[in-house]
């Protein structure tokens, strides 16, 4: 059933009795062409693009909980393509372009809002590093602007410019960056994929990968065994666990990242702002809540919750950046588990196991990547070849030295 | 002119302690009786001693023979006549002398028996007491300083308001617990900013301990 202002009005007169489920609740088939493990943003996007761009529709998305129960519903909803390295920038720019057409593609309003993303800088060296990045973005066809302090002040008058420990000197702005309504992204992809025949199997936990002669041929699940020609993993946070079922070790650690939302407030801040002298980023949702976050807790964890030191660090950064937040109340905080890769960049690749495809290592930047990740993963699954913009995301890059280390932090996941 | 210059040269090598320009005697905060007393310490000698692998007992014997205090094997302070041995990590201590007089000689004597690094100027030190001293410290120290949990003579390496500190408890004074704190010299100003903000509600009197001997 197509969504539109007209259908909404029509239903309003009928007491909304005519709406049908956004997706079916089918029983698992015995075999699919492609099984996607993980009903989060990336898995659902992969399903949508397999079906819509490659006409592969005999597909099931296996989700151990409910659709969108992982990081797609636990993030701070930021979208941007302000990357430095050539391995990354074109990929995230493809993602941005897909975001820009997402509502029309999916017939679902995920509230993609290009309100701008500003990364603040606080020193000359940081300015130069941002200039390097801004220039790299321009070379990749991405919009970027390097702002001075006065330009930032005009956009963000509330920040602390006069009494700051690390005064704001300026910022790198990507106007096309912004935010999107995270749950709606998952739901939109799920509904679109379902409409093309993809099966959404919720409460279907994969407990084993069936191997025959070194090839992955199916999965054991809490809803019984399912065979598949191709098995694709998109299980951020749990990549290590699922890969281990096929005997693989990955250059990944699982870490917890906390996120926060304030009480609803009348509009205060129109763009996404990141603090350059600490770990802190903030934006305001359409509902009025300030959505903010900071650094990962820093230790391996699957617990989906964090601890006070990082919470306090986030609040300190909030106050340092914007002393007017003192009386704003934090309403909720929660944690998501992240695939922290060894160079801070993702992996979209085949694996040493035939028939098993890997999409992982998104660190805490997976949300913005959702469309391109699904798009490129679908391409890889359908064609067996990496999509050109994702060609750098190979599993062997750690051995060859073709690292994609945006921060230069080295082989320590919790520093990325 | 020449005379004046000579005089100023002589004076100019006078040392400038870690609290100079940061804290000075006086009082601040709530009036009506100081809840916290701060005594600024200066002019002491301080050095890191690190024992070679397996040589901690030997080093301890040498220190004991020389100064009458054994090196504590746990986070404790051992105090002698004019010296303290303060645990500073496994096989590592701070040796504190009440005066810098003869301290260099002492360090030279000890140097063959362990790694010795002079740290006399590396820390700002303050002694804290007063009826509200634990309430004050609770605003920064992530440790249980209750008398039953942190005994007289206990030492801890920890942090206060993002500043790394070393803290120990001395014998009780008239108002109860007494603590001394070492702060990295470069961060003394930030420590003091935390201290003044935190102690103000209790009222605070600041004094400077007399410097013992030449420096």
């Amino acid at each position, binding site marked *: 059933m197509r969504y539109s*202002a007209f259908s*909404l009005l029509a239903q*309003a007169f009928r007491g*909304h009795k005519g*709406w049908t*489920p*956004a997706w079916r609740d089918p029983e698992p088939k015995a075999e699919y062409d492609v099984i996607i493990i993980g009903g989060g943003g990336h898995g659902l996007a992969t399903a949508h693009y397999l079906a819509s761009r490659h006409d592969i529709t005999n597909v099931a998305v296996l989700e151990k909980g409910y659709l969108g129960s992982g990081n797609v519903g636990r993030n701070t909803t930021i979208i941007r393509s302000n990357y430095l390295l050539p391995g990354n920038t074109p990929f995230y720019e493809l993602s941005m372009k897909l975001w*820009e057409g997402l509502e029309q593609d999916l017939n*679902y*309003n995920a509230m993609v809002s290009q309100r701008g993303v500003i990364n603040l800088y606080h020193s000359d060296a940081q300015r130069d*590093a941002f*200039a*390097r990045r801004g*220039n*790299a973005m321009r*070379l*990749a066809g991405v919009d*970027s*602007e390097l702002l001075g302090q006065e330009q930032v002040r005009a956009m963000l008058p509330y920040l602390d410019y006069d009494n700051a*420990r*690390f005064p704001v000197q300026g910022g790198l702005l990507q106007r096309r960056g912004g935010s999107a*309504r995270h749950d709606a992204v998952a739901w939109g992809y799920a509904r679109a994929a379902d409409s093309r025949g993809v099966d959404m199997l*919720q409460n279907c936990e994969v407990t084993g990968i069936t191997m025959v002669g070194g090839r992955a041929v199916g999965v054991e699940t809490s809803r019984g065994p399912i065979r598949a020609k191709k098995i694709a993993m998109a299980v951020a946070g749990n990549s290590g666990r699922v890969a281990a079922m096929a005997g693989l070790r990955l250059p990944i650690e699982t870490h917890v990242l906390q996120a926060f939302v304030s009480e*609803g407030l*009348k509009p*205060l801040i129109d763009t996404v702002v990141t603090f350059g002298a*600490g770990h802190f980023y903030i934006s305001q949702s359409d509902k*009025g809540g300030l959505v903010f976050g900071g650094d990962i807790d820093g230790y391996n964890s699957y617990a989906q919750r964090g*601890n*006070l030191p990082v919470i*306090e660090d986030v*609040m*300190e950064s*909030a106050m340092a950046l914007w002393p007017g937040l*003192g009386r*704003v*109340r934090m*309403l909720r905080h929660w944690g998501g588990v992240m695939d922290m890769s060894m160079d801070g960049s993702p992996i979209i690749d085949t694996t040493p196991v035939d028939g098993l495809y890997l999409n992982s290592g998104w660190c805490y930047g997976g949300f913005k990547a959702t469309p391109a990740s699904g798009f490129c993963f679908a391409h890889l699954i359908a064609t067996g070849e990496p999509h050109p913009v994702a060609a750098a995301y190979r599993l062997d890059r750690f051995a*060859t030295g073709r690292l994609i280390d945006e921060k*230069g932090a*080295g*082989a320590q996941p919790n520093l990325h | 002119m020449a005379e004046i210059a000579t005089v100023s*040269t002589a004076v*100019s*090598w006078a040392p*400038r302690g870690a609290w100079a320009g940061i804290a000075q005697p006086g009082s601040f905060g709530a009036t009506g009786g100081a809840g916290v007393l701060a005594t600024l310490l200066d002019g002491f000698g301080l050095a890191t001693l*690190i024992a070679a692998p397996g040589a901690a007992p030997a080093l301890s014997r040498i220190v004991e023979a020389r100064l009458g205090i054994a090196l504590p094997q746990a986070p404790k302070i051992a105090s002698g006549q004019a010296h303290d041995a303060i645990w500073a990590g496994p096989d*590592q201590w701070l040796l504190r002398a009440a005066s810098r007089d003869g301290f260099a000689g002492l360090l030279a004597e000890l140097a063959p028996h362990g*790694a010795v*690094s*002079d*740290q006399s*100027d*590396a820390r700002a030190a303050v002694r804290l007491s007063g009826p509200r001293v634990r309430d004050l410290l*609770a605003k920064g120290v992530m440790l249980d300083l209750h008398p039953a*949990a942190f005994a007289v003579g206990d030492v801890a390496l920890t942090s206060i308001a*993002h500043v790394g500190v070393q803290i120990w408890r001395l014998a009780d004074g008239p108002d109860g617990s007494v603590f001394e704190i070492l702060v990295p010299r470069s961060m003394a100003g*930030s420590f003091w900013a935390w201290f003044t903000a935190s102690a*103000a*509600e209790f009222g605070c009197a600041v004094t400077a301990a007399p410097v013992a001997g030449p420096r």
Partner: protein
Amino acid sequence: MSGQSFRLVSGGLVDRDRALNFSFDGKPYRGFAGDTLASALLANGVRLVGRSFKYHRPRGVLSAGPEEPNALVELRSGARREPNTRATVTELFDGLDAASQNRWPSLVFDLLSLNGLVSPALVAGFYYKTFMWPAAFWEKLYEPLIRRAAGLGRAAGLEDPDHYEKAFAFCDLLVIGGGPAGLAAALAAGRSGARVILCDEDFCLGGRLLAEKREIDGKPAAEWLAATLAELENLPEVRIMSRTTVFGLYDHGIYGAVERVGDHLPEPAPHQPRQRGWRIHARRAILAAGALERPIVFPGNDVPGVMLAGAARTYVNRYGVLPGRETVLFTAGDDGWATARDIAAAGGKVAAIVDARGEADPARKALADKLGARLFAGGVIEGTRGGRQLDGVTIRDASGATMALACDLLAVSNGWNPTLHLTSHQNGKAVWDEALQCFVPGTLPAGLAVAGSAAGHFTLGQALEDGARLGGEAAAEAGLKPAAAGPVPMTDPEATALQPIWRVKGAKGKAFVDYQNDVTDKDVELAAREGFRPVEHLKRYTTLGMATDQGKTSNLSGLAIMAEQTGKTIPQTGTTTFRPPYTPVAIGALAGHHRGKEFRPVRLAPTHDWSKEQGAVFVEAGQWLRAQYYPKPGENDWLTTVNREVQAVRAGVGLCDVSTLGKIDIQGADAAEFLERVYINGWKALPVGKARYGLMLREDGFVMDDGTTSRLGDSHFLMTTTTANAGKVMQHLEFCHQVLWPELDIRMVSVSEQWAQVAVAGPRARETLRAVVDPAHDISNEAFPYLAARAVTVGGGIPARLFRISFSGELAYELAVAADHGDAMMRALMRAGQPFGITPYGTEALGVMRIEKGHVAGNELNGQTTPRDLGLGKMMSAKKDYLGRLMAGRQALIEKDRPSFVGFRPVDPTQRLRAGAHFIGIGKADIMENDEGYMTSVAYSPHLNHWMGLGLIKGGAARIGERVRAYDPVRNGDIVVEICSPVFVDPEGARLHG
């Protein structure tokens, strides 16, 4: 001024001798000490206090506690304005100033209530189905409209004038909640000598005892309460913290709490914070947080005047306020009857009691008669009348007949939910108790026990018994002998029978599940219809439970309606998961002292005050503040100053503080071996008394840090690190020692703080030092050659260390003295160098000179470069293993066209270079594929009279002489540069050895 027409003439815990003035929406009122804003408003007959989120419906006070979804106000004004403040927990103070929010132009006449007219379209998730066309309209039109309409109160936005603190506490037992269970627990543990912290979010301890007419041991509960509090206050190890909310449970028994130190005052008291964020470390904790009453979902259940029955009782008994003149009670259990009884006892009129349970027993009939109330056993409320205030209700009796009844208060009682929030903060799942018809705590986090109503033990007797037992257990756990436990106090009997009704069906009109977010039962039905059935989908799709009250009054009803829709039970449908914080927490309280300049500690060099005296401009360098340059009068831009400083050094002598460099004392028999392993170059052959430049890698082969390290003795080295990496390098070396090679005899300690160190650079440096270093030390070129490093004395016997090392390329030394002498050292050097025009220089001039010499620094050591990239590949020893050796040799890292280090100069010498520019071939398109590298550092060279740059470019030194474009579109730069040697000044190094 309006009178307090709803205030009872007596009773309650307010202090009628202390009248307090306050205002709401600009209108003055009066209340009493001990009131909340809500009780004071109700006392004054103010019913309409807020507007709902989506439909802007008029709303009144629903509750008397932290669960309040409706009565949210903007408290205070100006920079202290606090939006979304719950009037029900706001302690009244004299001069309190509050305003309603989310309405325009006024609370009574709110234009956005027109949303109600189109509400048929504004169902759950409507925005996902529309606003999609045309795409560009979302940001421009739809979203701004939505954003303006959404949100609740207005944040001040201005800098918060109050300050905040953090604090840390430790205890044997943390008791959360100061009601009967909590008090009994604290008493039992406290009597044993346990260290107890008792926190209560209220400003009075007692919990429900304050709101109920109960007896303990045959006497009014207030007497027991007073005696208990008196005893607790006298126990030295018991600390009572009222106005303190324990908001979260974290790992290993750490509880987050916020103490509202000054919120009950117009402004915090002098020297006191507004709030204090506590981290409480508890060996054991008892959650005695009571329970929250549940509303019933029926049409019109949101009109001001519809109130939870327990809250109505609170207003009567605790605040001496009659929340209505004509009351109708709508109850699903025995508990509601207490409200009718207490209202009647206080002189209020109870018009009717609608008890949804079937046939009433004779006792209830008798009580209704006694209260003069009509009893509708088996009846329900199916509608309300009134807009801004309740005028009456429609009752449907057991036979199905309906009748209207006038009233101005509808008290609603549907049982209570245990306040078990903290039990789920560690992923614990609550479990459904079929008998109690509520969720009760499931698996508990380690160290936490639950007492009283929070455990589903709803009677006073159970609360007292739980508390005493668990408090005693906690004391025993702490190794204490239990105090002789007296008998658990006796309580008067209470009836707790309950048959909850989740919603009244078969009636028309909006029936609210989540008041604040305007989620109705129809929205839940729609979610079910569209497949959003898992509880998280329900919440996320409808926004149920996502408002500032976090669904305290709505989650269970929503779940129950979903269960009914899907034909499942409540526990099959899901559990309610609560995330911290229990109630919203001010950001300031968790930041504490760390804001503004105190966000992070500042590190100051021992020479800082001297630099300040010299007029230095300081710059943040990591945690340090370093002198950036020293402007002189008449110098109007920094470049003029820096040029002067550089020229002074190159022509005469200058001095620059370098105390901020990391300094690590390394001793031990294996010190040289250790350095062999952590540096890429060799160390064993370094003679005593000499310094050497060293480069260390991360294990992944990229450069970590560099610096000079000096051999002070056979087994004694002094390593210097960059200012930025000092801490990181120390940690790294400790790792190498303790984790990789513990068998080595290495003893390391940071001596960064001990030494004041200054670079003395320039052709006249030796002459300057000659006047400062004691004459006994020969510092002639022969006796003290380049890279000499030795102990000397200055100022007549003051120990010092002298290093002949140079970052500027000039004849240069670094002189170090103990920090106490740092200030004097600068003055002595200034005097000694006066004849040579000695000039203090800062980090800018330092940077210019290092670029002139082609030395790498932070901009090049960015974690993405290998020694080969930086032209330092020759330093990599082939004879030994060292950290990073293998990984630096990976295929992609030794490819020829990997960008490597060279210098750049503008072909047109008037043009300015910029770091961060990318290199593109002349005539090539500005696309990523043509990107050849980037400029890392630039400076203006007063020596060359033009800008110069360092950078990394494909092909590197092999391309010297070639021209490329330095492309810098973010600063509108695109200039032609020539690739050149990175050494711009004195490439032969003649000056260095002079």
